[in-house]
C-alpha cells in the first residue's frame, strides 16, 4: 500500500472516529478547567446517544433529512440538563467529584436502558432511518492529494468538531469568560475576591460539558451505531477523558489527542495491509491507545499540570 493510499484510508476514518471524542473531550476541558473533575463524560455520552436516537426515531418524519442535526441539538440540550445533577452534587453539595462522576455514568446508563424498555418494550431501539452521511466538501475535495485525504467522504460533524475545538480555544484564552473560567479552576478564592461568582462559573462549565458530551454521544450514535442499547457507548467517554489529560487540558491538545486515538484505531483496523503491522497480534493494536496514553503521561509529553483547584469544592471562607 502506498503512503498516499494509506493516508487516504486512515485520515477520513480517524476523523470520523475522533469526532465524538473531540466533542466530549472539549466538554471535559471546560469542566476541568473550571475545577470540576468529570469522570461522568461516559454517562453524558450515553445520555446524548439515548436522546439522539430516541429523538431521531420520534421526529424523523417531521424534520426529514435535517433530523440528525436537530437530534444532536436535542441531545446536547437534554444532556446539558442532565449534567446539572453533577453540577449540583459537585458544586453546591460539595460531593467528591470523581464519585459523583461515577454515579453519573451509572445513572445515565440505568435511566437510558430503563426508559428504552419502558418506551419501546425492549432493551434496544430500532435502527434510525435518518443517520448522518459522509459527503465531499465542495471545491476543497478537488484539491490534489490534500482534497482526497481530508475532504472526500467526510462527515460534516467531524468538521464541526474541529471548528468547535478552535472556538473553545478562543473562548478559553481570549475572552473574559475564559479567563474567569480558568481562574476559577486555578484559584477559586482569588476569583471570588475579584467578584467572580465561582459556583456560577462552575455550573456553566459543567453544563457546557454536558452539552458537548451530549453532542459527542449523539454524533457517535448517529454516525456509527444507529440505535441505542446498553452497549452503544462502551468506553468512548473514558477515551475522551484520556484525551483531555493527554491534551493537557487544552482544547487543541484534546483535539490532537482525540485525533491520535482515532488514528491508532483506524491503523489497527487496516493493519492487515501495512507490512510492519501485519504480524502484530490484534490485541496489541487494541490496547495501543491506552498503553500509549499511560506512556505519554509517564513522561514522553512532559509534565501535564492539571488545573490546580481541579476536584476541590470551593467553600467560601476557608483557606
Amino acid at each position, binding site marked *: 500500500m502506498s503512503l498516499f493510499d494509506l493516508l487516504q484510508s486512515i485520515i477520513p476514518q480517524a476523523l470520523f472516529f475522533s469526532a465524538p471524542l473531540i466533542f466530549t473531550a472539549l466538554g471535559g476541558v471546560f469542566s476541568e478547567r473550571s475545577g470540576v473533575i468529570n469522570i461522568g463524560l461516559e454517562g453524558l455520552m450515553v445520555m446524548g446517544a439515548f436522546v439522539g436516537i430516541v429523538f431521531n426515531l420520534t421526529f424523523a418524519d417531521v424534520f426529514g433529512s435535517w433530523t440528525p442535526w436537530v437530534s444532536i441539538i436535542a441531545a446536547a440540550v437534554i444532556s446539558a440538563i442532565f449534567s446539572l445533577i453533577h453540577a449540583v452534587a459537585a458544586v453546591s453539595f460539595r460531593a467528591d467529584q*470523581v464519585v459523583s462522576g461515577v454515579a453519573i455514568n451509572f445513572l445515565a446508563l440505568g435511566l437510558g436502558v430503563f426508559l428504552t424498555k419502558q418506551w419501546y418494550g425492549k432493551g434496544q431501539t430500532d435502527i434510525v432511518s435518518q443517520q448522518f452521511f459522509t459527503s465531499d466538501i465542495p471545491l476543497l475535495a478537488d484539491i490534489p492529494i490534500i482534497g482526497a485525504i481530508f475532504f472526500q467522504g467526510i462527515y460534516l460533524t467531524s468538521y464541526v468538531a474541529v471548528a468547535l475545538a478552535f472556538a473553545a480555544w478562543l473562548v478559553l484564552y481570549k475572552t473574559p469568560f475564559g479567563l474567569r473560567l480558568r481562574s476559577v479552576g486555578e484559584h477559586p478564592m482569588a476569583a471570588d475576591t475579584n467578584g467572580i461568582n465561582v459556583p456560577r462559573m462552575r455550573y456553566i462549565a459543567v453544563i457546557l460539558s454536558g452539552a458537548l458530551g451530549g453532542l459527542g454521544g449523539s454524533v457517535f450514535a448517529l454516525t456509527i451505531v444507529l440505535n441505542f442499547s446498553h452497549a452503544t457507548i462502551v468506553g468512548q467517554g473514558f477515551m475522551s477523558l484520556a484525551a483531555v489529560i493527554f491534551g493537557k487540558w487544552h482544547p487543541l491538545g484534546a483535539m490532537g489527542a482525540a485525533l491520535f486515538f482515532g488514528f491508532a484505531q483506524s491503523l489497527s483496523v487496516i493493519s492487515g495491509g501495512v507490512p510492519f503491522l501485519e504480524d502484530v497480534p490484534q490485541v496489541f493494536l487494541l490496547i495501543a491507545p491506552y*498503553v500509549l496514553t*499511560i506512556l505519554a503521561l509517564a513522561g514522553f509529553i512532559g509534565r501535564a499540570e492539571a488545573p490546580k483547584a481541579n476536584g476541590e469544592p470551593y467553600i467560601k471562607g476557608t483557606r
Partner: protein
Amino acid sequence: MNANRLFNILVPVISVLIGLLAGAFMMLGFGYNPITGYTALWNGAFGDLYYFGETIRQVTPYIFTGLAVAFAFRSGLLNIGAEGQVIVGWLAAVWVGTTVEAPMVIHLPLAIIAAAVAGAFWGFIPGILKASRGVHEVIVTIMLNYTALYSANAIVRNVLSDNEDKTPDVAATASLASEWFQNLTYFSRMHYGIFIALFAAVIMWFIIERTSMGYELKSVGYNEYASKYAGMNVKWNIILSMIISGAFAGLAGAMEGLGTFGYMSVQSGFNNLGFDGIAVALLGANTAFGVVLAAFLFGALKVGALNMPTEAGVPTELVDVIIALIIFCVASSYIIRWILLRFKKEGK
C-alpha cells in the same frame, strides 16, 4: 464528636432511603406498584435460601472491591482501576487453577495468591507512576482497565484455551465451590470465598486502624509533605497502598474464577464489580465494617433486581438508577449533614 459518629451512620442510611424512595416514585411514575416491585426485589434477594445464597455469592466479590477502593481512598488515592485488577486477578487464579497440579492445600492457596499478586501488580503500575512521576492514578487506572480487559480476553482465547470463549474449568483442588453450601441453599453458587472476604475485611481494619503501616498510609494520604518531613517514605507508601488495594481487587477476581464460575470467559465488557466497589466503599464510609454492610446491600439489590422483571414486570435497570442515586447522596453527604444540623437546631 459523638454527633459526628451519629452522622456517619445516619448519612448512609438516609442516602439508601432516598435512593429507595426515588426508585418507588419512579415505579409509580411508570405505572408500577412500588410495593409489588420491592417485594419482588426482596424475594429475589432473600426470598428463600437459594436467593440468599446467591446474594452472598454476589456480596463476596463486592466486599473485596469495596475494600480495594476504600483502602486506596484512605491513603488519598482513588482506585478507579479495581475493574481491571479484578480481571487480571480472575485470569491469574484461573490460570493457576487450570494449569497447575497439586493437592488442595497447596493448589487453592496458590491460585488465590496468584490472583492477589496479579491484582497487586496491576495496582503497582499506577502506584509507581504516581510515586515516581506524579501521574494521576485515576487516569492510569482507567487506561489499565481497558488494557486488562483486552489482554485477558486475548489470553483466555489464545493461551488458556484453544481459540474458545472460555477456559476449561479449574481443577477441583483449586475450587472454592462448596457442596455443603450448595446443598444447603438449593444449589446456589455460594462458596467458601465469603469467609475469605470477611477475613480480608478484618485485615483491612487491622492494617488501617491498628498498625504503624496504616498510620503512615493515612498520613501520606492526608499530607504527603508532612509525611516526608516525618521521615516516612512517601513514594513507597503510595505504591504500597496501590499494591494492597490491587491485591484486594485481584482477590475479587479469584472469587469469580475459583468460586462463582470456576473458569474465565471472554468478557464483552466490564462486569462492573470494580465500579460498584466505589459505591460500596463510599457507602461504607471507607471503613472495613462499613464496606461489609454496604456490600450486603448492593449484593442484595443486584441479585434481587433479577427477580423484578419476572415477578413485577419492572426492568432491572431500576436498581442501577437506585444505586446511582445512593452514590450521589452519599457523595453529597455535606448537604445531608447540613440539613440534619438544621433539624437539630430547630429541635432545640
